[in-house]
């Protein structure tokens, strides 16, 4: 592993207690500042892999290293790992659980020990990054779905993560919110791992794409090349929307 990589996953294997093998030797390296799309059909193990990145799921084989720090069960290490890996979950209603936007964004940094003016700065900085500062005192349920998703991104940005992991960032967004989120993500100076089966969105935002199927990484290539390979996509139950095609380079 080089200093330049944000994330280094080595041969991770994991089986759920019911015996279902969700990850079967996954290896993946993401360089600092890269934006990578993690593609795969439902049930491929994407969410399981995501939960390994910040040590929520452990106990299998293999190692996960985030900017040089390896995930272990040690409490102190886990706190630092969870600061470095910011996961934005699919349903913003799962992520935003406090009564106001500002409190929710403050939750992460407060867990890192920030208080007072410093905490306030973090919150404003994160809300500015997603253009939601004017809504800081609002109740999450009064925001539109797109706004809630942006706040959800802010809640992890406030922890100044090394890598931002987004689970289906474009799901349920209308076209305008989808574009707004893309603009925001493109402007962020962090490493991004985007889990999705929205292939056009992956192509729009990521230079590199990997396909996870049946618990293994089965393809790793520039997004343009990968999405132009119809046969490869079809083998792994991935399809471009009707009428779309990516010309081979």
């Amino acid at each position, binding site marked *: 592993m080089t200093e330049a990589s944000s994330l280094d996953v080595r041969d991770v294997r994991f089986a759920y207690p019911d015996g279902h093998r969700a990850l079967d030797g996954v290896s993946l390296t993401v360089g600092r500042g890269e934006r990578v799309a993690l593609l795969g059909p439902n049930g491929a193990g994407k969410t399981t892999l995501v*939960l390994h990145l*910040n040590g*929520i799921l452990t106990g299998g084989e293999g190692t996960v290293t985030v900017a040089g720090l390896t995930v272990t069960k040690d409490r102190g290490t886990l*706190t630092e790992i*969870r*600061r470095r*890996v*910011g*996961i934005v*979950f699919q*349903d913003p*209603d*799962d*992520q*935003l*659980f*406090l*009564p*106001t936007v500002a*409190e929710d964004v*403050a*939750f*992460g940094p*407060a*867990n*890192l020990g920030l*208080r007072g003016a410093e*905490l306030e700065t973090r919150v404003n900085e994160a809300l500015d990054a997603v253009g939601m500062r004017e809504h800081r005192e609002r109740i*999450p*349920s009064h925001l539109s779905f797109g706004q809630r998703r942006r706040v959800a991104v802010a*809640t*992890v940005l406030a*922890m100044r993560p090394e890598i931002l992991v987004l689970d289906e960032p474009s799901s349920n967004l209308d076209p305008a919110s989808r574009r707004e989120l893309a603009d925001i993500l493109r402007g962020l100076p962090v490493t991004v791992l985007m889990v999705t089966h929205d292939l056009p969105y992956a192509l729009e935002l990521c230079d590199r794409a990997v396909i996870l199927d049946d618990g293994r990484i089965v393809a790793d290539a520039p997004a343009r090349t990968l999405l132009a390979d119809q046969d490869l996509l079809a083998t792994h139950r991935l399809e471009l929307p009707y009428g779309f095609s990516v010309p081979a380079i």
Partner: protein
Amino acid sequence: MLYREGATPIHRLAPEVKIAATVAITVAMVATPREAFWAFGVYALLVVALAATARIPGPWLVKRSLVETPFVLLALLMPFVGAGERIEWLGLHLSVEGLYGGFNLLVKGTLGVLVSLILAATTTTRDIIVGLDRLRCPHVLTQIATFMLRYLDVLTGEARRMHIARLARGDDPRFLWQVRGFATGVGALFLRAFERGERVYLAMLSRGYTGTLFPQSPGAGVAQWATAATVPLVTAAIAVTATIVT
């Protein structure tokens, strides 16, 4: 919600001070002997003064205190069903004990409801939770209340969508024997809430949750406590006097 926007002195008091004052006032009122009619007159004046300071209109208070109605009915019933000595009034035979009992329930209940309404009108639900937290209320309780505050809308939204989906498939639960769909709906809603709970917890862990939701913020100073203590002290003084006199 019951909260009314405002910037009165009562609005500005820290929530924990207001909660403590509300509890103290209510306890003092309840502890006052029921025979001390004058004391309740003074309490009523105090409540009116508080409402005026907080700029809460009378009709607003009256309308919201309707929650008390079941107790009022019970109180009105007591003179008729009470035992012991009876007096005749307008051709009705009323129990003296029942009259006292009914008055006791009615006056203390009403005053208590009004004081609580004044608290609710001047403090946001959010602040009430913060106040309870600062009063060292167990974290588990304040956390549950926080989640309820956040997810009540989400859950009612889910329940409404499920209801519409049932109606769209021809369910028409107008009669008792058609509640089956509703009952299974409640079960499904419970499961969804449970699963959401799991996902929320994972999201919290991912942001470094260690058992506390928000950092303890500094609470009210001595000045605030002193200001807020005036009304409970007056109430307590009246209660003590009433106890000694009667």
